[in-house]
């Protein structure tokens, strides 16, 4: 929990700054709108967290999100009755992509960076091969509801976000979480002490695929069919997780902090927009902040928690 404090503090400062610039932000509607907008990235960050904490990467989530939305549009094709079967299928596809990523990484011993890079190319190529280059078909109103509608004033995406967040925290408190962290921290030691390392990693990848499927349902619902809905999300998700103080290389960091990292990133975008300083240089600001945040974590936290040899570039 202590690890979560720094990022929560940063998040609070950013939220306060937003509220000063835009008082509407403090009203329930304004805040809910922020949560709704952040939901897909936060969910992706939770998924990415499982993979990163187990010592791996998942670069395929962005193109998985695009693929899922395009698949949904083509299969539903405006037919409301197809909504639920297609949603079920999307979730299965997400899990399946994660399974393949996980199995190739663990059983064929290919670095996950390469596996998921390959998966990124394969997914984006295959889905457009199937639809002939551009998305076709249309999403049903029922499908759109998850990203557009809500239960009274509360958007569905916020409720889904809460459910996903709670499930992620619960998972990390359960045995699975301890297994995963042990795997990421020291794979060999974990394996020697009887942890089923490969299984833990495969499940982590499947959770990331599942998160991408959920994010795709929310994003597709929010704005409809688009060929570039998932573009760049993999880097945003990894950045968010790292911003939350989770260490690349695995073994350290909490899922709550990862999700807070995603909120922070989203708040940072909002803030830079609001203050109108959001020129092209916004990227530069973002780059500096990311490096600074990780550097601060690397310099201080390891000293506080684990006096390890200064092998920070390997980050474990």
């Amino acid at each position: 929990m202590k690890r979560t404090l720094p990022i929560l503090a940063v998040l609070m400062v950013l939220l306060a700054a937003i509220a000063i610039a835009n008082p509407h932000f403090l009203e329930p509607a304004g805040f809910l709108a922020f949560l709704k907008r952040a939901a897909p990235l936060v969910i992706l960050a939770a998924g990415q967290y499982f993979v990163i904490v187990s010592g791996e990467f998942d670069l395929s989530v962005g193109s998985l999100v695009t693929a899922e939305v395009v698949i949904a549009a083509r299969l539903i094709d405006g037919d409301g009755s197809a909504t639920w079967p297609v949603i079920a299928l999307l979730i299965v596809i997400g899990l399946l992509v994660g399974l393949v990523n996980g199995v190739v990484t663990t059983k064929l011993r290919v670095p996950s960076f390469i596996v998921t890079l390959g998966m990124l190319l394969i997914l984006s190529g295959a889905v457009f091969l199937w639809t002939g280059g551009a998305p076709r078909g249309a999403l049903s109103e029922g499908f759109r509801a998850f990203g557009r509608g809500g239960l009274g004033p509360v958007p569905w995406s916020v409720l889904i976000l809460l459910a996903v967040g709670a499930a992620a925290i619960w998972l990390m408190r359960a045995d699975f979480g301890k297994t995963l962290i042990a795997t990421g921290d020291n794979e060999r030691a974990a394996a020697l002490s009887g942890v089923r390392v490969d299984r833990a990693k495969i499940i982590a990848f499947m959770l990331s695929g599942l998160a991408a499927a959920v994010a795709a349902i929310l994003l597709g619902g929010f704005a409809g069919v688009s060929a570039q809905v998932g573009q760049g999300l993999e880097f945003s998700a990894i950045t968010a997780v790292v911003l939350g103080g989770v260490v690349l290389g695995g073994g350290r960091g909490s899922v709550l902090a990862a999700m807070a990292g995603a909120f922070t990133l989203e708040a940072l975008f909002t803030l830079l927009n609001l203050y109108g300083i959001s020129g092209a240089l916004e990227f530069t600001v973002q780059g500096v902040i990311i490096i600074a945040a990780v550097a601060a974590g690397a310099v201080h936290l390891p000293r506080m928690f684990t006096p390890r040899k200064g092998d920070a570039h390997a980050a474990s």
Partner: protein
Amino acid sequence: MPRHKATVAVFAVLVVAGCTTDKPTATTQPAAPTSSASRSAEGSGTGEQSKFFVQADFDAQLAMRAQAPQGPADKPWEQAIAPRMADTAKYKKDGPYHLCFSNAAVNNPWRQVGWKTMQAEVGLHKEITKFTTLDAEGKDDKQISDIAELQAKGCDALIVSPNTTATLTPAVTAACGKVPVIVFDRGVETDCPVTFIKPIGGYAFGADAAEFLVEKVPAGGKVLALRILPGVDVLETRWSAAKMTFDKSKVQVVGVEFTDGDAAKTKSIVSDYIQRYGKIDGVWMDAGATAVAAIEAFEDAGLPVPPINGEDQQDFLQKWKDANLTAVAPTYPTYQWRTPVIAALKILKGEEVPKAWNLPQPKVTSENLSTYLKPNMPPLHYALCGCETLPGFPEAWGGKKS
């Protein structure tokens, strides 16, 4: 990180255009504005004129809108506005023909629709026995090698759709010496191609949309301008023409934002503006791909949709009809992909072709909406494909027989 490219891009353009923001302008490029008409527009909210703006082209395009095109009325892709014909007798040769095509990319729905239309057009002509295409995948460097490689394939004519204007010029110039070259969509900075085919152009597009808004939005009304991204010539011209129109009008442009062509971002931007200003009275867009997302932002906020422009994309036309919007759709017709093939055959048969082949550029209005809106086409189909009579329609374009 694409989500905030919009704001980034706004800023980039403002800065490059030497805008009067608080940022220093010392960083602007040496390239001076190419027009004398970049008059200051302080207060109108449209910023400085784009450095891509060329007054002569602007005037020419706006004039072309009123001119009647020559050629068969039912085949706008064979029509030309005020053509000055070029002699092609020296290219005359007997068939059968081998045509080559260096394509910039097929990476967006507009190019997808166009590419399918072109392939179908080629299929109509038995005298074309071979059609070789290389796809540059949006990479200038690859297109340069592609053009070089195609010259060695024994093409009788080379069609080029350049990825960017300036960087492809040397490659096209080199090819001109070997085969008749036909350029379409984006131009190159040389007049060595036998013909350059394009619809009237971006100024006409931007002005059509802006004039509609000026007419429909009450004086002092707040207009939001949404652009895809800066620095693309064919999009810059659209905005610079709209800017000219808005500057002369009484509407107030409250924001010029970049969407990256991303639906989610477009919707977020429009929602933010609705929240900030309470009411937006008109939306101008430089491309229609995300028009529906902009409309949904109003719907989700429980507000009536103000006058808006889109493009001839199926989802927008459908929404327009269903929600009975106050809208207009200027076009950049995909039927222009048919013309290069027709031009190539004319050239090889020694028939004269317009040196600058300006195709008509119709706009979709409430009156003619029903003639352009075809049922059962995919959401990102472009209505002005001129493909309804081609073999394989509608399935090859992703549609369903009704």
